């Protein structure tokens, strides 16, 4: 059981980005403009710390390294009851996320975690 998952389209895009940029990471953004969107960076580009929660690692077939997914601890307080699936749509995301030049944008799709899932996740 994991809090995060990804679609096939997102997995394809991650494989392409990894071939170009090496190991990757996500940090879920909040706030304005391009906020509420998952930002994809080269692993280690964004320095996580005590203010962040590690939601899980995405194992992508064909990629050597798993892709960790992070979120700020304060934001997690409001998100912890939802399961997140990273998808990709056409568009022009901003921020410093790696996929934007390709004319696509990672997007979070959410569903509520069931009581059983929440119990399992602790």
């Amino acid at each position: 059981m994991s809090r995060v998952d990804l679609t096939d389209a997102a997995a394809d895009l991650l494989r392409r980005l990894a071939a170009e940029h090496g190991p990757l990471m996500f940090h879920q953004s909040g706030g304005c403009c391009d906020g509420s969107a998952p930002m994809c960076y080269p692993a280690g580009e964004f320095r996580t710390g005590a203010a962040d929660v590690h939601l899980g690692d995405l194992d992508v077939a064909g990629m050597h390294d798993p892709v960790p997914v992070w979120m700020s601890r304060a934001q997690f307080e409001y998100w912890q009851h939802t399961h997140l699936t990273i998808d990709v749509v056409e568009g022009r995301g901003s921020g410093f996320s790696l996929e934007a030049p390709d004319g696509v944008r990672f997007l979070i799709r959410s569903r509520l975690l069931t009581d059983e899932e929440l119990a399992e996740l602790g």
Partner: protein
Amino acid sequence: MTTYAAPGQPGSVVAFEPRYDHFIGGEYVPPAKGQYFENPTPVTGKVFTEIARGTSEDIDRAVAAATGAADAWGRTSPAERAVLLNRIADRMEANLEAIAVAESWENGKPVRETLGADIPLAIDHFRYFAGSIRAQEGSISQIDADTVAYHFHEPLGVVGQIIPWNFPILMATWKVAPALAAGNCVVLKPAEQTPASIHVLLSLIADLLPAGVLNIVNGFGAEAGKPLAQHPGIRKVAFTGETTTGRLIMQYASENIIPVTLELGGKSPNIFFSDVAAADDAFYNKAQEGFAMFALNQGEVCTCPSRALVQASIYDRFISDGVARVEKIQQGNPLDTDTMIGAQASNDQFEKILSYIDIGKQEGAKVLTGGEKADLGGELSGGYYVKPTVFAGDNKMRVFQEEIFGPVVSVATFDDYDDAIKTANDTLYGLGAGVWSRDGNTAFRAGRDIEAGRVWTNCYHAYPAHAAFGGYKQSGIGRENHRMMLDHYQQTKNLLVSYSPDAQGFF
């Protein structure tokens, strides 16, 4: 009613060039890597120009040009810089319609807003900082009878500015005007979603600008924004956007030990105390308009009043009237002056809003109106339109907690004053807030108790120059829209001067 012809069409007041390069050192130069990206209008989804795709080589070139100009520009008199800003304002005023139509086509927002708000506010902003820099004074401290400390304002040098897409020209102006007034040179990166309209503005003012004082490098965040934020030649970075990129920019800034100003959004509460419904009069009408303000600029405003908190005793009547008000909002062609809500700025923004509407429904929020995309037919079918949406629910739901950045308001009730303030402050952000009450004491106390940098009191979405704008909590650092922004673009030079002929006596 007027419908402006689309840019480039017969009868249009403005035309875009088929391609825009970078503006560096007073001239247009192609990108080092020769790459361009397509720029669609959200009005129809169709591409209307292509834009240089900047990289670190272009940023290096722009920073070098700005550095070359910085010394001379920094030594100009405040009067000279004020004249430049006033001339920019005059040019903009003389070309208001052209700039406004270009901005509407670029961003998707209704032209009545660009004609009546975005561009007039930008014009006034240049004039405000022209006046502010003339009126600014240093200070003198008398340390003792023979010793004086002089404090001079000096420019930082070259500053980097990363602009959002929701008010492309106005947000650029909020950053450019104080930076130039203070004597800095600028390297500016527009948002990749809205990279073109600023070049229409530039075409009108480029001859006024000394070469290298204002440089524009277009491109994507990862390719152009990052090298700008990391550049060792930059003495300050200003950014408007969201929290993760804001933190990343702070991390980059820490590498060079330079300051940042950040405006990172919010989830603004809009509080309606029961006395607003004490009479069915002009004030009640004004408060109803205040409720509908979430639809301004399609909700793509950092201070969108996206959480309406309504006192339980008036909830049924107030929300019933409010929903009726929202249903009268005219959605249509952004270039029609009767249109009140236009298109979302990009496809991914459109998709994100729809995904939030979906999670809102899953969490049990009730859709009172809207809740889906709008198909306006014809050519507009390719554009990104969302119906103004009112959710009723609970403050813990994600649609109450996250900046959706769309025309979506979530409504909750409160019982008493303490409950209202507790709910209003139950958010990570603190940029804007609204308070509505006929009772001055209640309104004042609420304004002071809300943890936000701007509390509109019996009004909303006004952005006059000379009223400080900036965030508490995770909404950022710094105050724009006010002469205090000059401080963020200046450093203090202290001359500590002794007028005594006598030795200190230590050695």
